């Protein structure tokens, strides 16, 4: 759960309170709170942890990380259905 995933800010809702943006994690779009990076702009890359953007990241390293996370199945682990994962674990069919 300590994973922080890099993503690209694709839009910002300036009227939202707290400040919210849409983040693209290699194709998966999710909202994140931008309150801790209030001056972030559309097109910048950020690292996001439990729905909060915590720091900026340069594009090249963000892309490299995302590719690796995808390959390792970490994106699925982070954004997938936790009940399903827990049930698989309980029934012993957890395959990684």
């Amino acid at each position, binding site marked *: *759960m*300590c*994973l922080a995933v890099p993503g690209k800010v694709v839009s910002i809702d300036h009227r939202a309170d707290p400040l919210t943006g849409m983040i693209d994690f290699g194709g998966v779009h*999710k909202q994140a709170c931008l309150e801790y990076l209030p001056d972030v702009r559309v097109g910048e890359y950020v690292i996001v*942890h439990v729905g909060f953007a915590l*720091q900026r990241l340069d594009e090249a390293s963000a892309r490299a990380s995302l590719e*690796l996370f995808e390959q390792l199945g970490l994106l699925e682990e982070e954004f997938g259905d936790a009940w399903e*994962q827990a049930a698989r674990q*309980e029934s012993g069919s957890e395959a990684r």
Partner: protein
Amino acid sequence: MKYIDEFNDPDLARRLLDEIHAIVTRPWALMEVCGGQTHSIIRHGIDQLLPDKVELIHGPGCPVCVTPLDVIDQALEIAARPGVIFCSFGDMLRVPGTDRDLFRVKGEGGDVRVVYSPLDALDLARKNPDRQVVFFAIGFETTAPANAMAVHQARRLGLDNFSLLVSHVRVPPAIEAIMTAPECRVQGFLAAGHVCSVMGTAEYPELADKHRVPIVVTGFEPLDILEGIRLAVHQLERGEHRVENAYPRAVREQGNPAALRMLEEVFEVNDRNWRGIGRIPASGWRLSDAYRAYDAEHRFDVAGIRTEEPAECRAGEVLQGLIKPTECEAFGTSCTPRTPLGATMVSSEGACAAYYLYRRMNNAPAAQGPRVPQSQQEEMNPVG
């Protein structure tokens, strides 16, 4: 070499490894504090690619693993109550309490919800004004700002049906505790990158100085970890003990100022029990006075909880780096991710789970295996 090929830049990985092999002249023991790093290390076999002289000791940095048993039991009891919606990160579902887990409570009719963000829990409170919504606020410094924002918003919006069951832990006091333990073998630390994304690095120079240990802020990906190890070994070989930032792309010295301000407002430092380890002074956060009304521990009377850990579980020693998971007799026999005895076998950051998941896979006949001696392979080959 199977592992190196899997790195996103095998050439760079090879160069970093070669350099570590070239500079090391004496045995060194480094601790990676963070469980996410432990998983990366075991998954990619980094510990086996390193020179024999460099040992990695796995640290206590798994928030799921160190959440004390009595707090887990409190969570289970609150979650089972009628009228409560209990929200948690997915990692907590299978963490064993004294006699059940959240997954079981849900099966028995408790309204347990998995949320991706604490703000999702806040949303549930807004939409269900007649229910008490409790969020299980665990985590290190990385997660605390998110949880702080949720309760800050709740207070601002007057959402009185929202509360947090708080079990936050902080890394620097844990480093202090590890270094002052009489059996400590750690000579250098890889500090958790994302913790420092929030907190910056200001808390570490004092620790590095006092205990004469290098502390290298490190990311989670295999190359980041190799670079962190290289810098730490380099310092050790030269007799240095500085704080170094090997993860500058996500860590600024001052951390995240807006997040730090929110933490300051919502939380105050307190002593905390770490599961399997015990009480560490000033190692946690609890809600500050202004937010005390949103503390689930106060809101729900959960007295009379009697906890009991399975006697054979040695997670405490694993978390302190005193033993490797494979030294626990229950590992892979009576304790597996399916029937976990300790939280370290459940969490995606727990060391026992890492050894079980990756060492087992790597021992499958198809894998062009890492350099694991036969005797060790057998010992690591769990049933099930």
